[in-house]
């Protein structure tokens, strides 16, 4: 710094520039901090956006009275079922039927089979997802084993129903809808052995962002 313009004739100008530099630096630093916050704000924004637009595989949940919906007997929709367990969860879990042909508006029951192969009780929860994502809002579950936690004793096996209806509003081009579940361990004490991180998955069916699509397969 020694040589930096010691004989600058306009000393006043230098001070003015320094002051302007300080002010602009403060503003730009504030902008950078704001953008750091914006990065986090993207999380709820994304949530709200998906909720408003119904994107991203959120499945609908219907109450019994909405079932009065008319059945569209002129149309068939194939519903496919898959099920898997998260890494580390020693449960056998699969749908008891690969697919069902249903009319839109028709209430249908499908069953899943689950068995605990471990030597101790485990608490798990299933997270649903529907593909294609655009169909998810029109796939309504009335009753589902995923609405609550499932506790299985050692070796216990169970058949679990999901009662659903495909909304007649489902876009005409969609002939096949796939419902998939992933079971996660929810007991924090067992997270080390059975995966999950022991936190209960969020299963508010209107809010959750458990999503559809290929990226989910990676989990």
């Amino acid at each position, binding site marked *: 710094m*020694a040589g*930096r313009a010691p004989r600058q004739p306009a000393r006043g100008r230098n001070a003015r520039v320094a002051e302007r*530099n300080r002010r602009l630096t403060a503003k*730009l630093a504030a902008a950078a901090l*704001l953008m750091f916050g914006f990065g986090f704000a993207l999380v709820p924004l994304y949530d709200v956006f998906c909720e408003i637009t119904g*994107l991203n*595989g959120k499945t609908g949940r219907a109450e019994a009275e909405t079932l009065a919906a008319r059945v569209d007997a002129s149309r068939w929709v194939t519903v496919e079922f898959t099920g898997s367990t998260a890494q580390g969860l020693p449960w056998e879990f699969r749908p008891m039927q690969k697919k069902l042909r249903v009319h839109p508006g028709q209430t249908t029951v499908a069953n899943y089979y689950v068995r605990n192969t471990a030597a101790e009780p485990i608490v798990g929860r299933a997270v649903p997802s529907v593909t294609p994502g655009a169909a998810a809002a029109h796939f309504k579950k009335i009753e589902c084993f995923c609405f609550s936690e499932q506790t299985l004793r050692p070796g216990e096996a169970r058949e679990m129903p999901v009662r659903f209806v495909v909304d007649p509003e489902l876009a005409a081009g969609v002939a096949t809808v796939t419902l998939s579940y992933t079971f996660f361990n929810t007991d924090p004490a067992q997270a080390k052995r059975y995966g999950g991180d022991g936190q209960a998955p969020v299963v508010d069916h209107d809010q959750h962002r458990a999503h559809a699509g290929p*990226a989910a397969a990676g989990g």
Partner: protein
Amino acid sequence: MAQAQAHHDEHPTGISRWLFTTNHKDIGTLYLILSLIMFFVGGAMALVIRAELWQPGLQIVDPHFFNQMTTMHALIMVFGVVMPAFVGFANWQIPMMLGAPDMALPRMNNWSFWILPFAFTLLGSTLFLQGQGGAPSAGWTLYPPLATQGGMGTDFAILSIHMLGISSVLGAINIVVTILNMRAPGMTLMKMPLFVWTWLITAYLLLAVMPVFAGAVTMLLADRHFGTHFFDAAGGGDPVLWQHVFWFFGHPEVYILILPAFGLASQIIPTFARKPLFGYDSMVYASASIAFLSFIVWAHHMFTVGMPAAGELFFMYATMLIAVPTGVKVFNWVSTMWRGSMTFETPMLFAVAFVFLFTIGGLSGLMLAIAPADFQYHDTYFVVAHFHYVLVSGAIFAILGGTYYWLPKWTGHMYNETLGKWHFWLTAIGFNLAFFPQHFLGLAGMPRRIPDYALQFTEFNQWSTVGAFILGFAQLLFVYVVWQAAKGGQKATSQVWEGADGLEWTLPSPPPYHSFATPPKIK
């Protein structure tokens, strides 16, 4: 003026000169040297990748190490080579081009640089943690769930990204303040050289997106260690959310990597065409439009995640819109050359190759922007070919050309033109041999980031590997030319190039340690 400034040149000698320097020229040199070192580190990793891909099957490295190489190669080339090189150019050139005595915030400038060697030591040290999972290996895009499952290398990478982000944001603040407050009287914004303009826009992009990336990797870190579920479906999070946040940063980032290159080409081409830049105003507006559009196209990186058709269409059309300002630039460069008295010294060779090859990369980008076609191209070697055409023959060629262009000014000596031309031709031939066949590989279905491939891809991969080794070893020639010019050689004049125009060419070569202590008069 030169004599008046000569006795201000005293500065500490030895290592403390470089550790404590607040001089924009010293800091520019430090950035450029760091970039050159990282260029060879990242390049060596690329050669490991290409050597493994010489033939199908696994021969040299195991797949996990291969994944570390692809991830580290990208992180180093993006954050360790291209960005520091541009900041180095900015430090050297912006004060001289604006008639300013130094950067506005010289001490912060020192800090911005010295964060980097530590960040890259942290990142590079992960290669020695092979017992704990080694270097980050989920790809530089760090997609969860893969990135949340990796070993501690990912945590090291996250922390080094935080440091790189701090460095970039500080550097960007410094550049904006310098450009807006430190211009010599009479240097209005629309008189600024285009390199300064593109850097001003780039600095704003950095300020807008580097903090978002810092936030994103912070969330990733929290998911890995602090029990949050931002990107974990089991906890109500969503891995696709990461992709949206990452590419909200990532797409402006690719313009951060190319806008200063546009600026460099816009300095070099008029010099050797001996004509002023054609369409200066439209160049400025085109750069600003590209920067604006870069914020609304991010999801074209993720057409295949299952977006609704409306989203695909929006991002497709918005992406294609970028071709308009980019086309304006390409036509302006060509029009600058049109009927110019062109000569082809090494900087001009790199600049012309930049225009030609970057345009090829731009066109393959347009192909990728077509959402229905992208489903075929996604995650194939076509994408790899595309972004190497825009980043190597775009950013790196501009950096090499810019180095030859200003090297006589910086060192005071002309470089060896014959060797420079050899370097150019070996680089250009090696580059095209390495990356052009990858277009065909991608269209034929070879996926990226996989150490093995189907038998029918062998021949093109062997061309590519040969080209990559030519490209890599040709850079040793570059180091030799730069070293030779730094040591001595034919004295350069102030003007250096016959057609050069701008304030930096009014200073002697090399410029005094403190230049423009008294602001110059602007015509």
